[in-house]
């Protein structure tokens, strides 16, 4: 394990994703990378890979999402382990038949005859004034689609290990990365993060703050700030959405009896809704307050920076909701 961790000296999230791909490409010649502008690695996760692995394994594609996701399905059935960088995860909407009807269904429909070891990586969430078609967090759509594993790392450590786990998985995995976290700092530690894991930090007993991606960072900042008010907050960073780390989530809620779920997706049928419902069903007896959801209201992400900030849960809103639930 330590020799693998040593393979990533990345101190920022996007390079850690690239390192996660690189270690897999080194140990397995069946791993290929393709997508839009992957050689220059415009989005980060593939930057530098072409230098080491050459244009034969790091392949720039036409802007044909359906075809290159579909080709990844065929290639996976045929014995490769493709990693497709789709740039913005909302570009998957162009390839939704391939991702949902095909990648998410074919193993089931063939009665388990095919395995689909492929990864689709894309940025997810608002980076600042990109407007609705480049700023959404479609994680709930992927969960509802079914047949897809989904991870959303928030730190370089999670990014490296979850990318590696995604590529080594025999299931199709969607790897989401937040564009505002590409240069977030942190080190890759030797303890692996696997599909189905959540990361709990800091440890607290008063309220469980449950979040992913950028919202996990805001949740951690709020937890720090509220220490001064005498609140003991536990942040559950749900970096794997499918499998959902129910055990960790429920263990936290059973301890605190109070939960605030923060989500950068739209509220209706959101990941926050799913987690809140799961807590309600499985840990109702332990709850001392209603479960609170904080998510984007049912509007697209607006362009103007002030409007964008207004629809995404802020630290102030998370703190206010947490205080309220702590005292409820």
């Amino acid at each position, binding site marked *: 394990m330590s020799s693998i961790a040593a393979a990533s000296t990345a101190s920022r999230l996007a390079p850690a994703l690239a390192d996660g791909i690189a270690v897999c490409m080194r140990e397995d010649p069946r791993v290929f990378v393709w997508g839009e502008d992957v050689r220059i690695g415009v989005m980060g996760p593939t930057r530098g890979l072409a230098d080491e692995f050459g244009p034969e394994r790091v392949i720039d594609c036409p802007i044909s999402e*359906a*075809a290159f996701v*579909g*080709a990844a399905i065929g290639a996976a059935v*045929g014995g*490769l382990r493709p990693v497709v960088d789709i740039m913005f995860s909302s570009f998957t909407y162009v390839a939704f038949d*391939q991702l949902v009807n095909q990648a998410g269904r074919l193993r089931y*429909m*063939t*009665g388990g005859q095919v395995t689909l070891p492929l990864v689709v990586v894309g940025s997810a969430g608002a980076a600042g004034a990109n407007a609705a078609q480049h700023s959404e967090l479609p994680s709930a759509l992927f969960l509802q689609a079914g047949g897809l594993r989904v991870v959303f790392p928030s730190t370089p450590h999670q990014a490296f290990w979850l990318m590696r786990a995604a590529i080594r998985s025999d299931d199709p995995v969607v790897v989401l990365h937040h564009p505002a976290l590409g240069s977030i700092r942190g080190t890759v530690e030797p303890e692996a993060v696997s599909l189905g894991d959540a990361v709990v930090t800091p440890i607290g007993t008063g309220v469980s703050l449950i979040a992913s991606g950028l919202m996990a960072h805001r949740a951690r900042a709020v937890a720090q700030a509220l220490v001064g008010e005498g609140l003991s907050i536990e942040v559950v960073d749900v970096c794997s959405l499918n499998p959902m780390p129910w055990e960790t989530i429920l263990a936290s809620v059973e301890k605190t009896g109070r939960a605030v779920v923060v989500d950068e997706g739209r509220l209706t049928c959101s990941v926050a809704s799913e987690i809140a419902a799961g807590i309600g069903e499985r840990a109702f007896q332990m709850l001392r307050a209603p479960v609170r959801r904080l998510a984007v209201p049912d509007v697209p992400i607006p362009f103007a920076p002030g409007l964008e900030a207004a629809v995404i849960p802020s630290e102030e809103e998370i703190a206010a909701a947490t205080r309220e639930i702590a005292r409820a």
Partner: protein
Amino acid sequence: MMIRIRLFEESLADLYRRGLLVGVVHLSVGQEATAVGVCSALRRGDQITSTHRGHHHMLARGLDPQRMFAEILGRAGGYCGGKGGSMHVSAPAEGAVGANGIVGGGIPHAVGLAFAAKQLGRDAVAVAFFGDGAANQGVLYESLNLAALWQAPVLFVCENNGYTEFTPTDAVTSGESIAARAASFGLPGCAVDGDDVAEVHEAARQAIEQARSGGGPSFLESRTHRWRGHHEGEESYARPYREPVESQDPIDRLERTLSDAGFEAKTLRELLEGEEKALVEHALTAAQAEPEPPIHRAFEDVFV
């Protein structure tokens, strides 16, 4: 093989009439020559992707009629354990990655399969079967472009049966020919008489040989005729189609060709019909006797 396909499909039509089939079936009666002409040019290790109307491709690829029937009847012994059905028969181990319920859905898979074969140093090709309906899907053109860029060993076979579901193809398809569209991507493309099995085979053989020897992808439009409706049981709302012409029957045509060449074609046909009838009937009876899948299978195979 064309006779086997015909009998297989006719027995499904009969089952449907008698209310013994669940779901929707799209039959390939009249289109046998495309499937047989192309698949007879393939080898073990090659792969095909197919369509909602794909029984003929699967049988021509050599799949077992009993396991085909079992799948279409939703039985445990079907290729997909009864989880795919008529539109989704799949047998990757036998060189048929799968039929596909989405028009055009399987086309990019063939590009990926061909790319994988090339990268893994396998001497294999992929064939994407699709209909004239898929000729108007964007993913076809994306796939042609990608295949050309990657020089993937793939043959695109457009089986033009004259109808896009219920609508005459020429009413919804612009340009002079579908085959001509391939030229824009630098792919060799040709149109063949899809009711002449020898002509289909010769064109497919050349294209597959070219792909296998590193010559890249090509495109074949096989102009054929669909003798039945879009799907069985559509009589209550489907409008009448153009009447098929007897002379277009690919089995009759092969018989005439062989007869003209001096063979005892009629006798041979009768002999084969007898053999295949027994085989297909036995396959159907055996499949009907199979159990339905156990309920726990509904909850399996989502993930590895």
